[in-house]
C-alpha cells in the first residue's frame, strides 16, 4: 500500500515539476546583473568620493562606503522603495550590503507593533540572523585555521 502511494506521489511530483511555469532564468540573471551592478557602481562612486575629496586611504574609504550604503539601503526600505527594487533585481539587490540592510530594517519596521522588546528587538534579525551566525562562525573557524596552520 505504501509503495503504491509512494509511486503515485512521485509520478505526480514529476508531472507537476515538468508542467509548472519556470522563472525566466536568463531575464532574471540579466536584471540581477544590472541592478546589482548599479548598486555597486553607486558604491564605487562613494568610495572614490571618500578617497578623492576626504583624503581617506583605501581601508577608511571602504568602511565609509559600507556605512553610506547601509544607510541608503535603510532609507530606501523605510520609504518603501527597496522592496520594489527587490522585485525587479532579485539576487542583484539582496547580495550587496544594501540588501543586508534591507533584511534588518524591514522586520524591524514590521514588528514594531509587537513592542520594542518582543517586537523590534526580538525580530530584527529574523531574516539576517542566520547570515550573522554562519558568517561570524565561519570567520572564527577560518581565523583559527590561519592562526594554527598558516601563520
Amino acid at each position, binding site marked *: 500500500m505504501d509503495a503504491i502511494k509512494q509511486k503515485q506521489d512521485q509520478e*505526480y511530483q514529476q508531472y507537476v515539476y515538468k508542467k509548472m511555469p519556470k522563472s525566466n532564468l536568463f531575464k532574471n540573471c540579466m536584471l540581477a546583473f544590472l541592478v546589482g551592478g548599479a548598486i555597486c557602481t553607486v558604491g564605487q562612486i562613494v568610495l572614490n568620493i571618500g578617497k578623492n575629496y576626504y583624503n581617506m586611504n583605501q581601508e577608511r574609504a571602504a568602511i565609509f562606503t559600507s556605512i553610506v550604503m547601509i544607510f541608503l539601503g535603510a532609507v530606501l526600505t523605510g520609504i518603501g522603495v527597496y522592496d520594489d527594487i*527587490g522585485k525587479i533585481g532579485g539576487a542583484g539587490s539582496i547580495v550587496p550590503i544594501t540588501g543586508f540592510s534591507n533584511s534588518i530594517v524591514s522586520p524591524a519596521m514590521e*514588528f514594531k507593533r509587537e513592542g520594542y522588546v518582543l517586537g523590534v528587538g526580538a525580530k530584527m534579525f529574523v531574516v539576517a540572523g542566520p547570515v550573522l551566525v554562519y558568517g561570524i562562525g565561519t570567520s572564527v573557524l577560518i581565523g583559527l585555521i590561519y592562526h594554527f596552520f598558516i601563520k
Partner: protein
Amino acid sequence: MEKRLGGQTVVLHNNPKIISRASIVGRKESQGPLAEYFDEVMPDNLWGEDSWEKTECRMLKEVCEKAIINANKQVTDINYMFAGDLLNQIMTANFAARQLGIPFFGLFGACSTMTEALSLGSIMVDGGYANNVLCATSSHFCTAERQFRYPLEQGTQRAPTGQWTVTGAGAVIVSNKGDGPSVTHITTGKVIDYGIKDVNNMGAAMAPAAAETIKTHFQDTGRGPQDYDLIVTGDLGKFGRELTIDLLAKEGYDISSRYIDCGCEIYSEDQNVQSGGSGCGCSAVVFTGFILKKMEDGEINRVLIGSTGALLSTTSTQQGESIPGIVHLVAIEKKEG
C-alpha cells in the same frame, strides 16, 4: 429519506437557503475584473486601525453585520456563527465573534474555511437546530505575508507559481425561511497529500484534493459535470486549475468548459499576482460577491463550489513536511418557489 449518499456526501432535504450575502475587499481587489460585484472597498490596507490584524478583524465584523442587515435580521436572530481565518489561533474570527456576541464555532480549514463554514451551517439549519446561521471568513494580504512569508518591505522576488493573498472578507446567512438559493448537497473532503513541499506552489499541493473530492462528489451523487452550470474551486490559481482539469480528465470527467477558479477570476493579468489569488477571502468574496449575484440574476442555477485549503503551518514547512490539501464541496441550487 436517505440523508447520506456514498462515503462522503450528505443530502439536505429541508432546503436551507442562503438568504443574504456581503463582501468587503481591499483596494487591489477593487481594481480587478470583479470590482463591481463587491459591497464595500476599504480605502487602504489599514482602514484607520493601528495594525493589520485589527483591520482584518474589523473587516470580518463589518461583513458579518452587513450580511445580518441585508437579511433584515437582528444580531439576536442569529443562532450560530461559523467562522475562521488564516492567522494563528484564528485570531481574527475569535476577536470578531467577541464583538458580535453570537454563539460561535471557530473553524480552521486554511483557505477552505468558506465552504467548511457553509457546510456546517447548512447542516445545522437543515437538522432544525438553528433558524439562522452566519458563515463567514476573511484574509488580509499583510497579516498573511507577515505570518507565512517575509516582512512586507523586504525586497524578494515571487515565483511564477506563487499566489497573492486576497484582502477581503465574505459572509452569508443560511436560514430555514426566506428567499435564496438552497444548499442541496455537501461533500466533505479528506486531507490529501501527494508530497508537494514547495510553499510557492500551493496550487499543485491542493489540486489532488480538489480533483479527488470532485470525483467523489460525482460518484456519491450520481451526478456529472453536465449537471452543473458552474464548478468552482477556491484558490488553486492558474497552474492549480490546469492540474485539476488534467487530473479529472484522467478519471474521465471533463469539467474544463464549466470550471472556474476564484483565484484566477479575482485579479487581472497585469496586476502582477503570478498564478492568481489565494487566502480564505479569495473564495469568500468571489462566492458572496460574484457567484451568488449571478445566481440571483438567474444566469446560473446550479453551482458546485469548493474552497481549497493548504493545511500547512510555518512549523511544518520548516520541519520539512509536505503540504496537505483539503477541499469542502457544497452544491447550491436555485429552486423555484
